[in-house]
Protein backbone atom coordinates (compact mmCIF):
# COMPACT_ATOMS: atom_id res chain seq x y z
CA UNK A 1 0.00 0.00 0.00
CA UNK A 2 1.41 3.34 -0.97
CA UNK A 3 1.18 6.30 1.37
CA UNK A 4 -0.88 8.18 -1.15
CA UNK A 5 -3.66 5.63 -1.00
CA UNK A 6 -4.02 5.58 2.75
CA UNK A 7 -4.31 9.38 3.17
CA UNK A 8 -1.42 9.15 5.58
CA UNK A 9 0.87 12.07 4.84
CA UNK A 10 4.64 12.27 4.84
CA UNK A 11 5.99 14.30 7.75
CA UNK A 12 7.88 17.29 6.36
CA UNK A 13 10.15 19.66 8.21
CA UNK A 14 9.93 23.32 7.26
CA UNK A 15 13.50 24.18 6.34
CA UNK A 16 13.10 27.73 5.11
CA UNK A 17 10.34 30.32 4.77
CA UNK A 18 10.45 33.25 2.32
CA UNK A 19 7.99 36.12 2.40
CA UNK A 20 6.91 36.80 -1.18
CA UNK A 21 4.31 39.49 -0.45
CA UNK A 22 2.69 40.57 2.83
CA UNK A 23 0.35 37.56 2.66
CA UNK A 24 2.16 35.09 0.37
CA UNK A 25 4.90 32.79 1.61
CA UNK A 26 7.10 30.11 0.09
CA UNK A 27 8.09 27.16 2.27
CA UNK A 28 10.92 24.77 1.56
CA UNK A 29 10.09 21.34 2.99
CA UNK A 30 12.38 18.37 3.62
CA UNK A 31 11.34 14.83 4.49
CA UNK A 32 11.58 14.03 8.22
CA UNK A 33 12.35 10.45 7.23
CA UNK A 34 15.42 10.48 4.98
CA UNK A 35 14.51 7.18 3.33
CA UNK A 36 11.08 8.46 2.34
CA UNK A 37 12.79 11.50 0.84
CA UNK A 38 15.15 9.33 -1.21
CA UNK A 39 12.26 7.23 -2.57
CA UNK A 40 10.13 10.27 -3.39
CA UNK A 41 9.96 11.58 -6.92
CA UNK A 42 7.61 13.83 -8.82
CA UNK A 43 7.34 15.56 -12.19
CA UNK A 44 6.64 19.15 -13.01
CA UNK A 45 2.97 20.14 -12.94
CA UNK A 46 2.02 17.80 -10.10
CA UNK A 47 0.44 18.88 -6.84
CA UNK A 48 -0.08 17.67 -3.28
CA UNK A 49 -2.18 17.97 -0.15
CA UNK A 50 -0.35 19.92 2.54
CA UNK A 51 -1.61 19.75 6.13
CA UNK A 52 -1.30 21.34 9.52
CA UNK A 53 -2.25 18.64 12.02
CA UNK A 54 -5.37 19.71 13.85
CA UNK A 55 -6.37 22.24 11.19
CA UNK A 56 -6.73 20.18 8.00
CA UNK A 57 -5.44 19.84 4.47
CA UNK A 58 -4.95 22.28 1.63
CA UNK A 59 -4.16 21.74 -2.08
CA UNK A 60 -1.16 23.45 -3.70
CA UNK A 61 1.12 22.63 -6.59
CA UNK A 62 4.71 21.66 -6.01
CA UNK A 63 6.36 24.97 -6.87
CA UNK A 64 9.94 23.69 -7.04
CA UNK A 65 11.31 21.77 -10.04
CA UNK A 66 12.09 18.03 -9.89
CA UNK A 67 15.62 18.87 -11.05
CA UNK A 68 16.31 20.31 -7.56
CA UNK A 69 16.32 17.25 -5.36
CA UNK A 70 16.13 16.78 -1.62
CA UNK A 71 13.26 19.17 -0.99
CA UNK A 72 9.95 20.46 -2.31
CA UNK A 73 8.57 23.97 -2.11
CA UNK A 74 5.07 25.36 -1.94
CA UNK A 75 3.85 28.91 -2.25
CA UNK A 76 0.53 29.94 -0.75
CA UNK A 77 -1.54 32.96 0.20
CA UNK A 78 -2.88 33.23 3.74
CA UNK A 79 -6.60 32.96 3.11
CA UNK A 80 -8.43 30.19 4.95
CA UNK A 81 -8.11 28.06 8.07
CA UNK A 82 -5.19 25.87 6.97
CA UNK A 83 -3.18 28.57 5.20
CA UNK A 84 -3.62 30.86 8.22
CA UNK A 85 -2.23 28.12 10.46
CA UNK A 86 0.61 27.43 7.99
CA UNK A 87 1.47 31.13 7.93
CA UNK A 88 2.02 31.06 11.68
CA UNK A 89 4.61 28.26 11.58
CA UNK A 90 8.38 28.68 11.94
CA UNK A 91 11.31 26.83 10.37
CA UNK A 92 11.85 23.47 12.08
CA UNK A 93 8.15 22.78 12.57
CA UNK A 94 6.49 19.71 11.05
CA UNK A 95 3.64 19.65 8.55
CA UNK A 96 2.06 16.88 6.44
CA UNK A 97 2.30 16.30 2.71
CA UNK A 98 0.51 13.77 0.48
CA UNK A 99 1.41 13.42 -3.15
CA UNK A 100 2.53 13.81 -5.81
CA UNK A 101 -0.84 13.76 -7.56
CA UNK A 102 -2.11 14.61 -11.02
CA UNK A 103 -0.60 14.74 -14.48
CA UNK A 104 2.40 16.69 -15.73
CA UNK A 105 3.59 19.33 -18.15
CA UNK A 106 4.85 17.17 -21.06
CA UNK A 107 8.24 18.90 -21.20
CA UNK A 108 9.98 16.08 -23.04
CA UNK A 109 7.54 16.63 -25.95
CA UNK A 110 8.57 20.29 -25.92
CA UNK A 111 12.28 19.65 -26.53
CA UNK A 112 13.61 21.69 -29.47
CA UNK A 113 10.72 24.14 -29.24
CA UNK A 114 10.47 27.77 -28.10
CA UNK A 115 8.58 28.26 -24.86
CA UNK A 116 6.32 31.14 -23.91
CA UNK A 117 5.22 31.33 -20.27
CA UNK A 118 2.37 33.69 -19.35
CA UNK A 119 1.38 34.04 -15.69
CA UNK A 120 -0.66 36.34 -13.52
CA UNK A 121 -0.44 36.98 -9.76
CA UNK A 122 -0.36 33.97 -7.46
CA UNK A 123 -0.52 31.61 -10.49
CA UNK A 124 3.24 31.83 -11.03
CA UNK A 125 4.04 28.97 -8.58
CA UNK A 126 2.95 26.06 -10.83
CA UNK A 127 4.78 27.74 -13.66
CA UNK A 128 7.88 28.36 -11.58
CA UNK A 129 8.35 24.58 -11.30
CA UNK A 130 8.26 24.08 -15.06
CA UNK A 131 10.32 27.24 -15.76
CA UNK A 132 13.18 26.08 -13.52
CA UNK A 133 12.81 22.55 -14.87
CA UNK A 134 13.45 23.70 -18.46
CA UNK A 135 16.10 26.24 -17.38
CA UNK A 136 17.97 23.40 -15.63
CA UNK A 137 17.89 21.57 -19.00
CA UNK A 138 18.41 24.78 -20.93
CA UNK A 139 20.22 23.30 -23.97
CA UNK A 140 17.18 21.18 -24.88
CA UNK A 141 14.90 24.14 -25.57
CA UNK A 142 14.76 27.11 -27.99
CA UNK A 143 13.90 30.67 -26.96
CA UNK A 144 12.32 31.05 -23.54
CA UNK A 145 10.03 34.04 -22.92
CA UNK A 146 8.27 34.75 -19.63
CA UNK A 147 5.43 37.27 -19.37
CA UNK A 148 4.43 37.81 -15.74
CA UNK A 149 2.08 40.35 -14.28
CA UNK A 150 0.39 41.18 -11.00
CA UNK A 151 -2.03 43.81 -9.76
CA UNK A 152 0.68 45.87 -8.06
CA UNK A 153 4.44 45.72 -7.64
CA UNK A 154 3.85 44.45 -4.08
CA UNK A 155 1.84 41.50 -5.46
CA UNK A 156 4.66 40.15 -7.65
CA UNK A 157 5.95 36.87 -6.20
CA UNK A 158 9.47 35.41 -6.47
CA UNK A 159 11.06 38.88 -6.83
CA UNK A 160 14.61 37.52 -6.42
CA UNK A 161 14.01 34.97 -9.17
CA UNK A 162 12.40 37.56 -11.44
CA UNK A 163 15.60 39.60 -11.07
CA UNK A 164 17.66 36.49 -11.85
CA UNK A 165 15.62 35.70 -14.98
CA UNK A 166 15.80 39.35 -16.06
CA UNK A 167 19.59 39.18 -15.80
CA UNK A 168 19.98 36.02 -17.91
CA UNK A 169 20.82 36.37 -21.58
CA UNK A 170 19.05 33.08 -22.41
CA UNK A 171 15.67 34.18 -20.99
CA UNK A 172 13.44 37.07 -22.03
CA UNK A 173 11.39 38.32 -19.08
CA UNK A 174 8.57 40.79 -19.56
CA UNK A 175 7.09 41.79 -16.20
CA UNK A 176 4.10 44.06 -15.82
CA UNK A 177 1.72 45.50 -13.27
CA UNK A 178 -1.87 46.61 -13.77
CA UNK A 179 -2.32 50.34 -14.45
CA UNK A 180 -2.11 52.15 -11.12
CA UNK A 181 -0.17 49.32 -9.52
CA UNK A 182 3.25 50.73 -10.40
CA UNK A 183 5.70 52.39 -8.01
CA UNK A 184 7.86 55.43 -8.94
CA UNK A 185 10.91 53.21 -9.51
CA UNK A 186 9.06 50.45 -11.43
CA UNK A 187 11.07 49.58 -14.57
CA UNK A 188 8.76 46.99 -16.09
CA UNK A 189 5.66 47.31 -18.24
CA UNK A 190 2.38 48.83 -17.14
CA UNK A 191 -0.76 47.12 -18.40
CA UNK A 192 -2.83 43.96 -18.11
CA UNK A 193 -1.09 40.72 -19.09
CA UNK A 194 -3.07 40.11 -22.33
CA UNK A 195 -2.46 43.73 -23.45
CA UNK A 196 1.26 43.53 -22.72
CA UNK A 197 1.42 40.19 -24.52
CA UNK A 198 -0.24 41.76 -27.57
CA UNK A 199 2.23 44.66 -27.47
CA UNK A 200 5.19 42.28 -27.31
CA UNK A 201 3.67 40.19 -30.09
CA UNK A 202 6.05 41.00 -32.94
CA UNK A 203 8.91 39.56 -30.87
CA UNK A 204 6.97 36.35 -30.12
CA UNK A 205 6.59 33.85 -32.90
CA UNK A 206 3.98 31.12 -32.63
CA UNK A 207 5.93 28.84 -34.96
CA UNK A 208 7.52 25.94 -33.08
CA UNK A 209 6.40 27.55 -29.83
CA UNK A 210 4.48 26.11 -26.91
CA UNK A 211 2.59 28.52 -24.66
CA UNK A 212 1.82 27.89 -20.98
CA UNK A 213 -0.80 30.14 -19.40
CA UNK A 214 -1.59 30.23 -15.67
CA UNK A 215 -3.61 32.95 -14.05
CA UNK A 216 -6.99 34.07 -12.83
CA UNK A 217 -9.92 33.06 -15.09
CA UNK A 218 -10.31 36.60 -16.44
CA UNK A 219 -6.65 36.73 -17.51
CA UNK A 220 -6.89 33.34 -19.23
CA UNK A 221 -10.09 34.41 -20.98
CA UNK A 222 -8.45 37.51 -22.52
CA UNK A 223 -5.10 35.84 -23.21
CA UNK A 224 -6.51 33.07 -25.37
CA UNK A 225 -7.69 35.37 -28.24
CA UNK A 226 -4.30 37.12 -28.27
CA UNK A 227 -2.52 33.77 -28.62
CA UNK A 228 -4.98 32.64 -31.29
CA UNK A 229 -4.29 35.84 -33.23
CA UNK A 230 -0.57 35.12 -32.92
CA UNK A 231 -1.24 31.79 -34.62
CA UNK A 232 -1.02 29.42 -31.63
CA UNK A 233 -3.00 26.22 -32.06
CA UNK A 234 -5.17 25.23 -29.05
CA UNK A 235 -3.22 21.97 -28.64
CA UNK A 236 -0.02 24.01 -28.15
CA UNK A 237 -1.44 26.14 -25.34
CA UNK A 238 -1.25 24.59 -21.86
CA UNK A 239 -2.84 25.68 -18.60
CA UNK A 240 -3.62 24.29 -15.16
CA UNK A 241 -7.08 24.08 -13.56
CA UNK A 242 -7.41 24.51 -9.82
CA UNK A 243 -10.77 23.26 -8.58
CA UNK A 244 -11.38 22.57 -4.92
CA UNK A 245 -10.10 19.15 -3.91
CA UNK A 246 -10.10 16.96 -0.84
CA UNK A 247 -8.69 13.53 -1.72
CA UNK A 248 -6.45 14.23 -4.72
CA UNK A 249 -6.99 10.68 -6.00
CA UNK A 250 -10.27 10.78 -7.94
CA UNK A 251 -12.70 9.66 -5.24
CA UNK A 252 -14.06 12.56 -3.16
CA UNK A 253 -16.17 13.86 -6.06
CA UNK A 254 -15.78 17.66 -6.13
CA UNK A 255 -13.01 18.70 -8.53
CA UNK A 256 -14.70 17.36 -11.66
CA UNK A 257 -15.21 19.44 -14.77
CA UNK A 258 -17.85 17.41 -16.56
CA UNK A 259 -16.55 13.86 -16.71
CA UNK A 260 -12.93 14.91 -16.10
CA UNK A 261 -11.23 14.82 -12.72
CA UNK A 262 -8.92 17.81 -12.31
CA UNK A 263 -6.94 15.68 -9.82
CA UNK A 264 -6.46 12.71 -12.17
CA UNK A 265 -6.86 13.98 -15.74
CA UNK A 266 -5.32 17.34 -14.80
CA UNK A 267 -4.31 19.73 -13.39
CA UNK A 268 -2.54 20.30 -16.74
CA UNK A 269 -4.88 20.66 -19.72
CA UNK A 270 -4.46 22.04 -23.23
CA UNK A 271 -6.83 24.62 -24.62
CA UNK A 272 -7.90 21.99 -27.16
CA UNK A 273 -9.12 19.87 -24.23
CA UNK A 274 -10.78 22.84 -22.48
CA UNK A 275 -12.81 23.52 -25.63
CA UNK A 276 -14.46 20.11 -25.20
CA UNK A 277 -15.11 20.57 -21.49
CA UNK A 278 -18.08 22.32 -19.87
CA UNK A 279 -17.46 25.70 -18.23
CA UNK A 280 -17.36 24.29 -14.71
CA UNK A 281 -14.06 25.69 -13.45
Amino acid sequence: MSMADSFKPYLMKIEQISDETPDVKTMRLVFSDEREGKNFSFRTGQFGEYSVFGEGECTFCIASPPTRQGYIECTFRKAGRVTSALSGLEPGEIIGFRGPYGNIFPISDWEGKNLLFIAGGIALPPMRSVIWNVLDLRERYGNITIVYGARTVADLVYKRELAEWAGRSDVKLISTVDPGGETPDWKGEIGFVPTVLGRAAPAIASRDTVAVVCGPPVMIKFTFPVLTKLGFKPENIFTTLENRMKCGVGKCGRCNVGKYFVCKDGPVFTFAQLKDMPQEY
Partner: protein
Amino acid sequence: METEKKLIGRGELEKLFSHWRSKGKRILAPKKIGAKIDFAAVTTLEEVCLDQVQTVQSAKTAVFPRVEELFSFKNKDGRVEIRERDQGALPETVIFGLRPCDDAAFAVLKAIFNWDSQDPLFSARMEKVAVIGVSCPRADEYCFCTSAGGGPGGTTGSDILLTEIAPGEYLAEIISEKGRVLAGEAAGLKPCPASVSKEAHLAKVEPVFALERVAPALARLFDDNAFWVEQSLRCLGCGACAYVCPACACFDIQDEGGGSGQRLRCWDSCGFGLFTLHTSGHNPRPVQSQRWRQRLMHKFSYMPERQQVLGCVGCGRCSRACPVDMNILEHLRSVAEAKP
Protein backbone atom coordinates in the same frame (compact mmCIF):
# COMPACT_ATOMS: atom_id res chain seq x y z
CA MET B 1 -18.86 -19.35 -9.93
CA GLU B 2 -22.13 -20.74 -11.18
CA THR B 3 -25.11 -19.86 -8.99
CA GLU B 4 -26.31 -22.74 -6.80
CA LYS B 5 -29.95 -22.92 -5.75
CA LYS B 6 -30.92 -24.39 -2.38
CA LEU B 7 -33.88 -24.33 -0.03
CA ILE B 8 -33.49 -22.87 3.43
CA GLY B 9 -36.07 -22.58 6.19
CA ARG B 10 -36.35 -20.16 9.10
CA GLY B 11 -35.08 -22.82 11.49
CA GLU B 12 -31.89 -23.29 9.50
CA LEU B 13 -31.44 -19.51 9.24
CA GLU B 14 -31.79 -19.22 13.02
CA LYS B 15 -29.07 -21.84 13.44
CA LEU B 16 -26.86 -19.92 11.00
CA PHE B 17 -27.36 -16.73 13.02
CA SER B 18 -26.18 -18.38 16.23
CA HIS B 19 -23.32 -20.08 14.36
CA TRP B 20 -22.11 -16.69 13.06
CA ARG B 21 -22.46 -15.19 16.51
CA SER B 22 -20.40 -18.04 17.98
CA LYS B 23 -17.68 -17.23 15.45
CA GLY B 24 -17.67 -13.62 16.69
CA LYS B 25 -19.24 -12.23 13.55
CA ARG B 26 -21.29 -9.07 13.65
CA ILE B 27 -24.74 -9.38 12.05
CA LEU B 28 -26.34 -6.22 10.67
CA ALA B 29 -29.99 -6.45 9.69
CA PRO B 30 -33.13 -4.32 9.42
CA LYS B 31 -34.50 -3.73 12.89
CA LYS B 32 -37.32 -1.71 14.35
CA ILE B 33 -35.81 1.28 16.17
CA GLY B 34 -38.58 3.51 17.49
CA ALA B 35 -40.68 4.47 14.50
CA LYS B 36 -37.90 3.65 12.02
CA ILE B 37 -36.67 0.44 10.49
CA ASP B 38 -32.93 0.62 9.98
CA PHE B 39 -29.82 -1.52 9.88
CA ALA B 40 -28.47 -2.34 13.33
CA ALA B 41 -26.54 -5.12 15.03
CA VAL B 42 -28.78 -8.11 15.83
CA THR B 43 -28.12 -11.46 17.47
CA THR B 44 -31.20 -13.46 16.51
CA LEU B 45 -33.47 -13.79 13.47
CA GLU B 46 -36.36 -12.78 15.77
CA GLU B 47 -35.05 -9.22 15.85
CA VAL B 48 -34.95 -8.90 12.07
CA CYS B 49 -37.75 -6.97 10.39
CA LEU B 50 -38.50 -7.79 6.74
CA ASP B 51 -41.98 -6.25 6.44
CA GLN B 52 -40.77 -2.94 5.03
CA VAL B 53 -40.27 -2.04 1.38
CA GLN B 54 -37.05 -0.24 2.40
CA THR B 55 -35.07 0.67 5.47
CA VAL B 56 -34.55 4.42 6.02
CA GLN B 57 -30.78 4.15 5.45
CA SER B 58 -29.04 1.50 3.40
CA ALA B 59 -26.28 -0.67 4.87
CA LYS B 60 -23.66 1.58 3.24
CA THR B 61 -22.34 2.62 6.65
CA ALA B 62 -20.88 -0.89 7.11
CA VAL B 63 -18.27 -0.14 4.45
CA PHE B 64 -18.36 3.66 4.34
CA PRO B 65 -19.24 5.08 7.76
CA ARG B 66 -20.74 8.56 7.99
CA VAL B 67 -17.58 9.63 9.81
CA GLU B 68 -14.46 7.51 9.96
CA GLU B 69 -11.01 8.09 11.31
CA LEU B 70 -8.26 7.94 8.69
CA PHE B 71 -5.59 8.16 11.39
CA SER B 72 -4.93 9.96 14.64
CA PHE B 73 -2.06 12.28 15.44
CA LYS B 74 -0.23 14.02 18.24
CA ASN B 75 1.15 17.42 17.32
CA LYS B 76 3.08 18.70 20.33
CA ASP B 77 6.29 20.61 21.01
CA GLY B 78 7.39 20.54 17.36
CA ARG B 79 6.96 16.77 17.08
CA VAL B 80 4.24 14.98 15.16
CA GLU B 81 3.30 11.35 15.65
CA ILE B 82 0.80 9.61 13.39
CA ARG B 83 -1.03 6.51 14.54
CA GLU B 84 -2.66 4.51 11.76
CA ARG B 85 -5.81 2.53 12.30
CA ASP B 86 -5.54 -1.17 12.94
CA GLN B 87 -7.57 -2.52 10.04
CA GLY B 88 -7.26 -6.04 11.40
CA ALA B 89 -9.55 -4.94 14.23
CA LEU B 90 -12.50 -4.43 11.87
CA PRO B 91 -15.18 -7.05 12.63
CA GLU B 92 -16.23 -9.79 10.22
CA THR B 93 -19.75 -8.75 9.28
CA VAL B 94 -22.77 -10.46 7.77
CA ILE B 95 -25.28 -7.99 6.39
CA PHE B 96 -28.62 -9.73 6.27
CA GLY B 97 -31.95 -8.71 4.79
CA LEU B 98 -30.92 -6.02 2.31
CA ARG B 99 -33.04 -5.44 -0.74
CA PRO B 100 -31.43 -6.24 -4.12
CA CYS B 101 -31.03 -2.52 -4.88
CA ASP B 102 -28.89 -2.12 -1.75
CA ASP B 103 -26.85 -5.19 -2.66
CA ALA B 104 -26.22 -3.67 -6.09
CA ALA B 105 -25.08 -0.43 -4.44
CA PHE B 106 -22.01 -2.23 -3.08
CA ALA B 107 -20.87 -2.77 -6.66
CA VAL B 108 -21.29 0.98 -7.28
CA LEU B 109 -19.28 1.85 -4.15
CA LYS B 110 -16.51 -0.55 -5.22
CA ALA B 111 -16.33 1.21 -8.58
CA ILE B 112 -16.09 4.64 -6.92
CA PHE B 113 -13.48 3.74 -4.32
CA ASN B 114 -11.35 1.43 -6.43
CA TRP B 115 -11.77 2.61 -10.04
CA ASP B 116 -8.26 4.00 -10.27
CA SER B 117 -6.39 3.07 -7.12
CA GLN B 118 -7.56 0.90 -4.22
CA ASP B 119 -8.98 2.75 -1.25
CA PRO B 120 -7.48 0.73 1.60
CA LEU B 121 -10.00 1.57 4.32
CA PHE B 122 -13.02 0.89 2.13
CA SER B 123 -11.46 -2.29 0.74
CA ALA B 124 -10.54 -3.58 4.20
CA ARG B 125 -14.14 -3.14 5.34
CA MET B 126 -15.61 -4.57 2.13
CA GLU B 127 -13.41 -7.65 2.39
CA LYS B 128 -14.90 -8.44 5.80
CA VAL B 129 -18.49 -8.06 4.66
CA ALA B 130 -20.76 -10.83 3.36
CA VAL B 131 -24.08 -9.81 1.89
CA ILE B 132 -27.26 -11.85 2.21
CA GLY B 133 -30.04 -10.07 0.39
CA VAL B 134 -33.76 -10.75 0.48
CA SER B 135 -35.67 -10.09 -2.72
CA CYS B 136 -38.70 -7.80 -2.76
CA PRO B 137 -42.22 -9.19 -2.46
CA ARG B 138 -43.56 -5.60 -2.55
CA ALA B 139 -42.54 -2.26 -4.00
CA ASP B 140 -43.87 1.27 -3.61
CA GLU B 141 -44.40 4.22 -5.95
CA TYR B 142 -40.83 5.43 -5.40
CA CYS B 143 -39.12 2.18 -6.47
CA PHE B 144 -37.58 2.22 -9.95
CA CYS B 145 -34.92 -0.52 -9.85
CA THR B 146 -36.05 -1.92 -13.20
CA SER B 147 -35.35 1.46 -14.84
CA ALA B 148 -31.86 1.50 -13.33
CA GLY B 149 -30.67 -1.86 -14.56
CA GLY B 150 -31.75 -3.89 -11.52
CA GLY B 151 -34.84 -5.71 -10.38
CA PRO B 152 -36.75 -6.90 -7.29
CA GLY B 153 -34.86 -10.20 -7.54
CA GLY B 154 -31.56 -8.83 -8.86
CA THR B 155 -28.45 -10.67 -7.66
CA THR B 156 -25.72 -8.05 -8.34
CA GLY B 157 -23.67 -7.41 -5.23
CA SER B 158 -25.17 -10.26 -3.16
CA ASP B 159 -23.24 -13.25 -1.91
CA ILE B 160 -26.52 -15.03 -1.26
CA LEU B 161 -29.99 -13.84 -2.29
CA LEU B 162 -33.05 -15.22 -0.51
CA THR B 163 -36.55 -15.22 -1.98
CA GLU B 164 -39.43 -16.22 0.27
CA ILE B 165 -41.37 -18.85 -1.66
CA ALA B 166 -43.68 -19.90 1.19
CA PRO B 167 -44.06 -18.53 4.75
CA GLY B 168 -40.70 -19.17 6.45
CA GLU B 169 -39.33 -21.02 3.42
CA TYR B 170 -36.68 -19.43 1.19
CA LEU B 171 -35.03 -20.10 -2.12
CA ALA B 172 -31.32 -19.36 -1.56
CA GLU B 173 -29.32 -18.37 -4.62
CA ILE B 174 -25.67 -18.79 -3.72
CA ILE B 175 -23.85 -16.39 -5.96
CA SER B 176 -20.26 -15.99 -4.77
CA GLU B 177 -17.50 -17.96 -3.09
CA LYS B 178 -18.19 -16.00 0.11
CA GLY B 179 -21.83 -17.08 -0.17
CA ARG B 180 -20.82 -20.69 -0.68
CA VAL B 181 -18.77 -20.66 2.51
CA LEU B 182 -21.61 -19.04 4.47
CA ALA B 183 -24.21 -21.50 3.15
CA GLY B 184 -21.81 -24.39 3.82
CA GLU B 185 -22.09 -23.56 7.48
CA ALA B 186 -25.72 -24.77 7.36
CA ALA B 187 -25.47 -28.52 7.06
CA GLY B 188 -27.58 -30.47 4.56
CA LEU B 189 -29.46 -27.75 2.67
CA LYS B 190 -31.77 -29.32 0.11
CA PRO B 191 -31.34 -28.38 -3.55
CA CYS B 192 -34.17 -26.27 -4.91
CA PRO B 193 -36.52 -28.20 -7.20
CA ALA B 194 -36.74 -26.88 -10.79
CA SER B 195 -40.49 -26.38 -10.33
CA VAL B 196 -39.95 -23.43 -7.95
CA SER B 197 -40.48 -20.14 -9.74
CA LYS B 198 -38.66 -17.19 -8.15
CA GLU B 199 -40.46 -14.64 -10.36
CA ALA B 200 -43.87 -15.60 -8.97
CA HIS B 201 -42.77 -14.29 -5.58
CA LEU B 202 -41.35 -10.95 -6.71
CA ALA B 203 -42.91 -7.49 -6.74
CA LYS B 204 -43.89 -6.07 -10.11
CA VAL B 205 -41.85 -2.94 -10.82
CA GLU B 206 -42.67 -1.49 -14.23
CA PRO B 207 -39.90 0.53 -15.94
CA VAL B 208 -40.77 4.24 -15.88
CA PHE B 209 -38.16 5.65 -18.25
CA ALA B 210 -35.78 4.38 -20.90
CA LEU B 211 -32.37 4.32 -19.26
CA GLU B 212 -30.51 4.25 -22.59
CA ARG B 213 -32.01 7.65 -23.42
CA VAL B 214 -30.84 9.34 -20.22
CA ALA B 215 -27.08 9.77 -20.81
CA PRO B 216 -27.40 11.14 -24.37
CA ALA B 217 -30.22 13.45 -23.24
CA LEU B 218 -28.11 14.73 -20.32
CA ALA B 219 -25.23 15.53 -22.68
CA ARG B 220 -27.64 17.50 -24.88
CA LEU B 221 -29.24 19.29 -21.92
CA PHE B 222 -26.04 20.31 -20.13
CA ASP B 223 -26.15 23.95 -21.27
CA ASP B 224 -29.95 24.26 -21.13
CA ASN B 225 -29.99 26.53 -18.12
CA ALA B 226 -33.77 27.04 -18.18
CA PHE B 227 -34.35 23.26 -18.02
CA TRP B 228 -32.17 22.84 -14.92
CA VAL B 229 -33.60 25.89 -13.15
CA GLU B 230 -37.14 24.61 -13.78
CA GLN B 231 -36.16 21.12 -12.56
CA SER B 232 -34.46 22.29 -9.37
CA LEU B 233 -36.30 25.43 -8.31
CA ARG B 234 -37.72 23.62 -5.27
CA CYS B 235 -34.40 22.17 -4.14
CA LEU B 236 -33.34 23.40 -0.70
CA GLY B 237 -29.81 22.13 -1.07
CA CYS B 238 -30.23 20.20 2.18
CA GLY B 239 -28.33 17.16 0.95
CA ALA B 240 -30.84 14.67 2.40
CA CYS B 241 -30.85 12.81 -0.95
CA ALA B 242 -27.11 12.17 -0.70
CA TYR B 243 -27.28 11.19 2.96
CA VAL B 244 -29.81 8.39 2.33
CA CYS B 245 -28.36 7.28 -1.02
CA PRO B 246 -26.79 3.81 -0.93
CA ALA B 247 -24.53 4.71 -3.86
CA CYS B 248 -23.39 8.26 -2.98
CA ALA B 249 -19.78 8.32 -1.84
CA CYS B 250 -18.57 11.92 -2.10
CA PHE B 251 -16.60 12.81 1.00
CA ASP B 252 -14.82 15.55 2.87
CA ILE B 253 -11.61 15.30 4.90
CA GLN B 254 -11.46 17.29 8.15
CA ASP B 255 -9.28 17.44 11.26
CA GLU B 256 -10.83 17.34 14.71
CA GLY B 257 -9.51 17.49 18.22
CA GLY B 258 -6.83 20.14 17.85
CA GLY B 259 -3.17 19.18 18.31
CA SER B 260 -4.02 15.72 19.58
CA GLY B 261 -6.79 14.64 17.30
CA GLN B 262 -7.92 12.70 14.26
CA ARG B 263 -8.11 13.23 10.55
CA LEU B 264 -11.62 12.23 9.55
CA ARG B 265 -13.35 11.29 6.35
CA CYS B 266 -17.02 12.32 6.40
CA TRP B 267 -19.93 12.12 3.98
CA ASP B 268 -20.49 15.20 1.86
CA SER B 269 -22.98 16.24 -0.80
CA CYS B 270 -22.72 17.89 -4.21
CA GLY B 271 -25.94 19.69 -3.24
CA PHE B 272 -24.08 21.93 -0.79
CA GLY B 273 -22.74 25.26 -2.04
CA LEU B 274 -19.58 24.80 0.02
CA PHE B 275 -18.79 21.56 -1.80
CA THR B 276 -16.94 23.27 -4.66
CA LEU B 277 -16.34 26.75 -3.21
CA HIS B 278 -12.78 27.97 -3.77
CA THR B 279 -10.95 29.88 -1.03
CA SER B 280 -10.92 32.88 -3.36
CA GLY B 281 -14.73 32.99 -3.29
CA HIS B 282 -15.00 31.67 -6.84
CA ASN B 283 -17.42 28.75 -7.20
CA PRO B 284 -17.59 26.60 -10.35
CA ARG B 285 -21.16 25.57 -9.42
CA PRO B 286 -22.50 28.69 -7.69
CA VAL B 287 -26.25 28.02 -8.02
CA GLN B 288 -28.48 25.13 -6.98
CA SER B 289 -29.56 24.28 -10.53
CA GLN B 290 -25.94 23.52 -11.42
CA ARG B 291 -25.59 21.38 -8.33
CA TRP B 292 -28.74 19.42 -9.16
CA ARG B 293 -27.45 18.98 -12.72
CA GLN B 294 -24.18 17.66 -11.28
CA ARG B 295 -26.09 15.10 -9.20
CA LEU B 296 -27.83 13.65 -12.25
CA MET B 297 -24.84 14.01 -14.60
CA HIS B 298 -22.50 12.30 -12.14
CA LYS B 299 -24.73 9.30 -11.60
CA PHE B 300 -26.16 8.86 -15.08
CA SER B 301 -23.49 10.19 -17.43
CA TYR B 302 -20.00 10.57 -15.90
CA MET B 303 -19.93 7.35 -13.87
CA PRO B 304 -21.16 5.08 -16.68
CA GLU B 305 -18.41 6.57 -18.85
CA ARG B 306 -15.54 6.71 -16.34
CA GLN B 307 -16.33 3.84 -13.95
CA GLN B 308 -18.51 1.69 -16.23
CA VAL B 309 -21.29 1.61 -13.66
CA LEU B 310 -24.50 3.54 -13.14
CA GLY B 311 -24.35 5.68 -9.98
CA CYS B 312 -27.95 4.85 -9.04
CA VAL B 313 -29.73 1.62 -8.14
CA GLY B 314 -33.32 2.88 -8.24
CA CYS B 315 -34.05 2.37 -4.54
CA GLY B 316 -36.09 5.59 -4.37
CA ARG B 317 -34.73 6.65 -0.95
CA CYS B 318 -33.84 10.17 -2.15
CA SER B 319 -37.45 10.73 -3.25
CA ARG B 320 -38.88 9.35 0.00
CA ALA B 321 -36.53 11.55 2.05
CA CYS B 322 -36.87 14.79 0.07
CA PRO B 323 -38.58 17.45 2.23
CA VAL B 324 -39.92 19.22 -0.88
CA ASP B 325 -41.08 16.07 -2.70
CA MET B 326 -38.58 16.07 -5.55
CA ASN B 327 -39.01 12.61 -7.03
CA ILE B 328 -35.92 11.56 -8.94
CA LEU B 329 -37.81 9.23 -11.22
CA GLU B 330 -39.98 12.13 -12.41
CA HIS B 331 -36.84 14.15 -13.10
CA LEU B 332 -35.22 11.28 -14.97
CA ARG B 333 -38.39 10.82 -16.99
CA SER B 334 -38.26 14.53 -17.91
CA VAL B 335 -34.65 14.10 -19.00
CA ALA B 336 -35.32 10.94 -21.00
CA GLU B 337 -38.33 12.51 -22.69
CA ALA B 338 -36.78 15.96 -23.34
CA LYS B 339 -37.02 16.80 -27.02
CA PRO B 340 -33.69 16.80 -28.87
